């Protein structure tokens, strides 16, 4: 009887439509207005200092007083699929050489840095920290 009494049974059409949108999402909704190299440059200019692969790796893989590191969801190294630490949802590879869609949308970059830095560091990241992370990620090659 689960089949007919579950409340989520009837919005099947809606969910199918949502799925369709999700499948198209990364390709249709995000204009490729930037690149990983451009984002590295952007943060280096703001920080007035070059990003460091070593510092970026340390920031990415360590915890900062909380339960999570960047790597908790993105993996170590973030060159293949990760999993959301609490929901288990698959997160596609973060390193740009392993996922060409990464760092191609400025608004998305800003949104996720803001959210995830608050989750991991309980504050926003500085421009230098973002430059470091970009330097680390851009340095990961197949």
């Amino acid at each position: 009887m689960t089949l007919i009494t579950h409340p989520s049974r009837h919005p099947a059409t809606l969910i199918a439509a949502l799925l369709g949108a999700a499948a198209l999402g990364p390709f249709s909704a995000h204009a490729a207005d930037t690149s990983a190299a451009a984002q590295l440059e952007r943060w280096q200019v703001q920080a007035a200092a070059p990003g460091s692969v070593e510092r970026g790796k340390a920031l990415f893989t360590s915890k900062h007083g909380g339960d999570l590191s960047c790597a908790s969801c993105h993996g170590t190294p973030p060159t293949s699929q990760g999993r959301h630490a609490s929901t288990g949802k698959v997160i596609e590879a973060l390193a740009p050489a392993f996922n060409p869609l990464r760092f191609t949308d400025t608004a998305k970059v800003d949104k996720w840095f803001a959210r995830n830095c608050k989750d991991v560091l309980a504050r926003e990241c500085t421009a230098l920290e973002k430059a470091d992370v970009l330097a680390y990620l851009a340095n990961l090659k197949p």
Partner: protein
Amino acid sequence: MKRRCNALLAVLALIVPMAWADGVPVPRQALPSYAQECGSCHMAFAPAMLPAPSWQRIMNGLGRHYGTDASLDPGSAQKIGAWLQANAGTYKRVREEPPQDRMTQSNWFLRKHREVAPDVFRRASIKSAANCTACHGGADQGNFSEHAVRIPK
């Protein structure tokens, strides 16, 4: 017995959606930003799974969203919030506002999952009761059929 059961289900499948049609507003149009913004960390749950006041509280508290920061730009938040309000669950079962606005704490959810031990939900392959697709392979297509349930080890 199985055949009779299937026949019964087939008949019900024809009747039931009609009976629900006026009780559950299904959005004429999906909102792509909902799937994009809300579906990146978890399944894009159907709006009908929670009542409007629950969605409103969730949208007002995205900065502290079940342990993570899910904040949105004001434009997207407004648009998604309005869409959720317009499409929230209104029929009897979902009218109840579950504790902490968690659909997994709704009476209907607990009743449906009472045979599933709490430690099953905590398995590494499942992680949380909110991970519908872990066991309901077709959940993101709206298929919660008991026959399709596969509980991962």
